[in-house]
């Protein structure tokens, strides 16, 4: 099984996760991490080389992957797995997951908010700007970011609720040429450029690695830190922090209902390689991973994953996130989209980060939006 290896999901974690399955069935599960920069790249290379694993974790099907993986629609155990139909392509259920990861979250330092005189978490962009200003005056880094994938992802995460309120299923709107990527994101580029200009985001943070950004937030010198629910696992593992962590859904435009739609992804998605010579055993493994209570709970706690009805003891921050998910008017797909709601281009996240980083080096929001449209046109 090819899996993603992260600070939260280590090789030991994966081996421990499948151990009961191995003991019960006698099937030996070999865990392998990505040999390229990520699972997607590794899986593509392995498919091309004819060495694809029986099971692949952490990536989602698209038009090219779909013919390469088994259709799980006839498997009865897939029925109740989270978000299974959101990720279905042409009605085919190709992937099964363990839960949902909330994507649009802003973690904040409650002590910093108190000291800065921010009485309530911001619900509109004007309130958000005001909070940033107060945090800066109080001597905190108002908004923490990092380089690599984090720069672009954070901006998308912050903008999901507003964008999805204004343009539901915006990825389909782009595919249908009713909206351009540049038009979708230019207003958020403007917010971001203003924060950079006002010094609310440190320009040097663009050279920071995401793990250091996590550590900065946990050190207590940061006001707000936008990130997905996976940060909960790091927060829980960090022990006692010098401040109390809170979390809220990103703001929306004045006049929009708050909270807006919550960006979410299927957590720990599993697919079975269609060319597998052990497809029955692979299906058994995936069934175990997404239906066995102990396996589910282990995965939920390891990586900040949420699942309706799960009886996992949650930290206060995780409880707040569960409340955000429960209160969200809907869970929406993020980035390139999922299932049948997808952009007509692939590779958005990397290019998006590159374009957001260009705001740090003087590119105007208009030019950034144009660069996004140019990229979509050249690669569509």
């Amino acid at each position, binding site marked *: 099984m090819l899996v993603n290896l992260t600070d939260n999901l280590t090789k030991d974690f994966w081996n421990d996760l499948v151990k009961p399955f191995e003991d019960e069935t006698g099937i030996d599960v070999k865990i392998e991490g990505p040999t*390229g*920069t*990520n699972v*997607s*790249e590794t899986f*593509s*290379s392995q*498919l*091309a080389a*004819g060495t694809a694993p029986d099971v692949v974790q952490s990536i989602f099907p698209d038009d*090219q992957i779909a*013919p*390469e993986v088994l259709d799980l629609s006839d498997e009865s155990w897939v029925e109740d797995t989270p978000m299974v139909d959101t990720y279905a392509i042409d009605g085919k259920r190709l992937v099964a997951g363990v839960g949902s990861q909330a994507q649009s979250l802003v973690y904040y330092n409650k002590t910093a908010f108190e000291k800065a005189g921010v009485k309530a978490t911001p619900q509109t962009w004007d309130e958000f700007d005001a909070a940033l200003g107060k945090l800066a005056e109080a001597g905190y880094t108002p908004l923490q970011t990092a*380089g*690599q*994938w984090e*720069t672009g992802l954070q901006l998308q995460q912050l903008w999901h609720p507003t964008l999805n309120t204004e343009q539901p299923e915006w990825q389909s709107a782009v595919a249908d040429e009713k909206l351009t990527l540049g038009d979708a994101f230019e207003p958020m580029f403007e917010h971001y450029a203003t924060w950079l200009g006002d010094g609310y985001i*440190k*320009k*040097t*943070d*663009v*050279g*920071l*690695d995401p793990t*250091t950004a996590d550590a*900065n937030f946990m050190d207590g010198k940061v006001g707000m830190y936008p990130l997905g629910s996976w940060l909960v696992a790091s927060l829980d593992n960090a022990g006692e922090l010098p401040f109390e962590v809170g979390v809220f859904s990103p703001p929306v435009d004045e006049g929009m209902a708050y909270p807006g739609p919550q960006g979410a992804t299927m957590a720990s998605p599993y697919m079975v390689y269609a*060319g597998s010579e052990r497809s029955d055993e692979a299906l058994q493994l995936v069934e175990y991973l997404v239906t066995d209570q102990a396996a589910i709970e282990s995965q939920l706690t390891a990586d900040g994953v949420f699942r309706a009805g799960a009886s996992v003891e949650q930290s206060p921050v995780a409880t707040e996130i569960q409340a955000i998910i429960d209160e969200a008017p809907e869970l929406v797909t993020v980035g390139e989209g999922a299932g049948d709601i997808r952009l007509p281009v*692939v*590779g958005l996240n*990397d*290019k998006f*980060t*590159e*374009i957001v*980083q*260009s705001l*740090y*080096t003087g*590119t105007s929001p208009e030019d950034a939006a144009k660069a996004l449209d*140019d*990229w979509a046109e*050249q*690669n569509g």
Partner: protein
Amino acid sequence: MALMSASNTDTPPAAADLPREGGARPRRPRRPIGRSSGSRPRTSRWVEASMVLPALVVFVGLLVVPVGYAVYYSFTDYNGFPTQTPEIVGFDNYVRLFESADVRGSMVVTAIVAVAGSMVINAAALGLALLLWRTTRFTAFARVVMFYPHVLSLIVVGFLWSAILGPQGAVNSLLESVGSSPLPFLSDETWALATLILVIAWAQFGVQLLIYLAGLQAVPAELLEASRMDGANRWQTFRHVTWPALAPSVTVALITSMISLIKTYDVVVSLTGGGPAGSTKTFAYQILAVEFPKRQVGLASAEAVVLILVAAILAFGVLALRRRHDQGVQE
């Protein structure tokens, strides 16, 4: 002053033919190697061919076939998966490649890395080789130390220097502790590119150092001695004796460093991730981290073919320049 220069002589004698310190030794007459091809018996030709065959099979299997596939795929629309049949699209991928602003940008970055990087690498390697030329206990130790970075994986090198030069790395923490502003080694476009080049140079100059050290061992001792006797200072000795004798080594060092640099990938992944804002995205990074993950095997193959052609043009270009220079010297 009658300064003797190697460029004013015929081809320098091979090191083995030179008299050693402590007096000349008699030369053995050279034996002719083999016979002329016209008089070789047919069996001898078969024996020679059979000896070449294994190398030829390895060469074709490991080089010609993969490159052939890359060339073929470069004319197709293909995602690399066995279930899809490559569809011939002619020169579309090559047109796309040169129309793409991203690809053109990565070509410019690669050219800067290759030119600036090879200058830094060769300057550092040659300078250190001149310092470590004479064999002593210290220089033997220093050579090992200087070669050590080359042994490290470039991925590790990237992470290492990222920890040292990052916004909260060792250097910036030190600067902040003494009240100075941090330096944007990895957070400013120009700085990040310069940092990338210097880190690659640090990691790679070991091989060029060895090439120059080997070249320096072949500098005729009697020429150096003669130049000293003629009163040449160190610079004059270097300029008129050492440098001309090192010319073949310079050619090899330049070609190997430039070819290595135009393939820069690993260190980009771990040091800058191609950022900020794509400012350190090299051509190889574009192929491996952008096109292949998007499963654009046809386009990625076209880019790989361009990379191979550029490497070949560079290598043959430098060799041609070297030959022209040598002919000029001999005339």
